[in-house]
């Protein structure tokens, strides 16, 4: 814990900020003059008549699989591209650099449209495939940059030591560089995953059924837009909190006795 967090000044500032935020929320709701009705949303969770999952759960399932697949493919893409950026031949590096810059510096929304209307139609891909491909590449571009940065900033000392004792470059990479780099990589990587779960809402524009798409449908049916969007926000929040917690567990486990990493 940093020393200053105990100082009364910081407590005061925090309290003030909370007060301002709280007042804003309360005043906002008061001026809204709206009858809240969350009870009517229960059908979207579970349809009693047919005893089957409702719209919201369908959407949740969509968000889950789109996110998980994109995280997996994105991580593979990112690691590979990051390694090329770090140690590839000049030509490979330029290629990887172009890929990273294109995907990092254009809106995902546009990427999705291009992938769906241009690339997907040429290769007979479904909307789902186009969506996952876009998110994977987008996420991969960011991860590539994280990997390159981590490797570049890694202390070269232990690598020198491993080489000086006669390990090959490959052995050094596997037994020294990889474990140290992964420890550094974990926190930003989890941040990237959390971003991706939120960005997955964008695939609704190419009509993939996930949380955001379901939410629009629910609003269209019930006109309860405030309740629906609040509920959806809470679901995203819970998903990402779980994801961050898992990440933190892994981080603690990996760092073991390595607090400095």
């Amino acid at each position: 814990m940093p020393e200053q967090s105990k100082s009364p000044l910081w407590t005061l500032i925090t309290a003030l900020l909370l007060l301002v935020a709280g007042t804003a929320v309360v005043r906002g709701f008061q001026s809204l003059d709206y009858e809240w009705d969350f009870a009517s949303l229960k059908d979207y969770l579970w349809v009693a008549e047919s005893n089957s999952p409702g719209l919201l759960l369908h959407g949740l399932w969509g968000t889950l699989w789109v996110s998980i697949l994109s995280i997996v493919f994105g991580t593979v893409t990112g690691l590979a591209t990051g390694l090329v950026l770090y140690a590839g031949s000049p030509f490979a590096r330029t290629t990887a650099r172009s890929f990273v810059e294109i995907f990092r510096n254009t809106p995902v929304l546009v990427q999705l449209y291009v992938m769906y209307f241009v690339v997907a139609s040429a290769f007979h891909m479904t909307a789902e495939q186009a969506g996952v491909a876009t998110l994977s590449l987008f996420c991969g571009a960011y991860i590539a940059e994280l990997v390159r940065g981590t490797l570049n900033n890694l202390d070269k000392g232990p690598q020198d030591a491993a080489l000086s004792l006669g390990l090959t470059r490959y052995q050094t990479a596997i037994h020294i560089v990889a474990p140290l780099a992964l420890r550094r990589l974990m926190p930003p990587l989890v941040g990237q995953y959390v971003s991706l779960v939120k960005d997955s809402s964008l695939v609704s524009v190419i009509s993939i059924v996930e949380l955001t798409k379901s939410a629009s449908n629910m609003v269209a049916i019930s006109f309860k837009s405030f309740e629906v969007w609040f509920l959806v926000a809470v679901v995203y929040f819970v998903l990402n909190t779980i994801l961050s917690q898992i990440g933190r567990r892994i981080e603690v486990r990996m760092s073991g006795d390595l607090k400095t990493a």
Partner: protein
Amino acid sequence: MTAAVELLNVSKIFRSQSQTTHALNDVTLKVEAGEVCCFVGPSGSGKSTCLRTINGLETITRGSVKIFGESYSGQSSAHLLRRKTAMIFQRFELFPHLNALENVALVPHLRCGLNRTDATAKARQLLARVGLKEHCEKYPRMLSGGQQQRVAIARALAVEPQILLCDEPTSALDPELVEEVLQLLRSIAETGMTMIIVTHEMRFAKQVSKNCFFFDAGKLIESGPTPTLLSQPDHPRLKEFLSSLDKH
């Protein structure tokens, strides 16, 4: 008999846009097997760079480096020649994600095909030799500088090197921890190991080494038997360097 280490007209040049730096300028030297010698000189004089060319951590621009008559032919096979040497670093450079025991056991296990149990047993024995029997399970950050350096020495000995390279082994240590490391290096020197030590500890250099090499501005200025060189220096730069050390 071939020399353990032989450097012939070794130059290393760093080129940046604005300037060319001669990190090493035409260095020629020879270290016989079983000999302990010291590299001394002001910081930035090239002595550490010179040491690092001996195990190929630094590539050279011109000249040749030979280890028992063999020279480095390229990066891909560098690890083979490096296996005759081991190195101790100023900042220890232990593997931070492994405990003391694993630090020492890793390389013998990977490199010499020793199975995990044997490698660990050997590591335990070596850690006992450097006086760290009780600290086997500790991670580097839990050890003092002196203890970390002793783990590093055990790790170097674990690969059974023919030449031990020491790069300012006590420069990063608190004054009261220097002696425990020097003591250990002395005892290794007594076993007849070929050692090249970059050091600022002149008293230690006198005690332990037979020959001494003085570097300045990338050049090997003067060399000879340690007692003579340090007590009756010839070259004005060496005189100046030695008297600057006396002031402290």
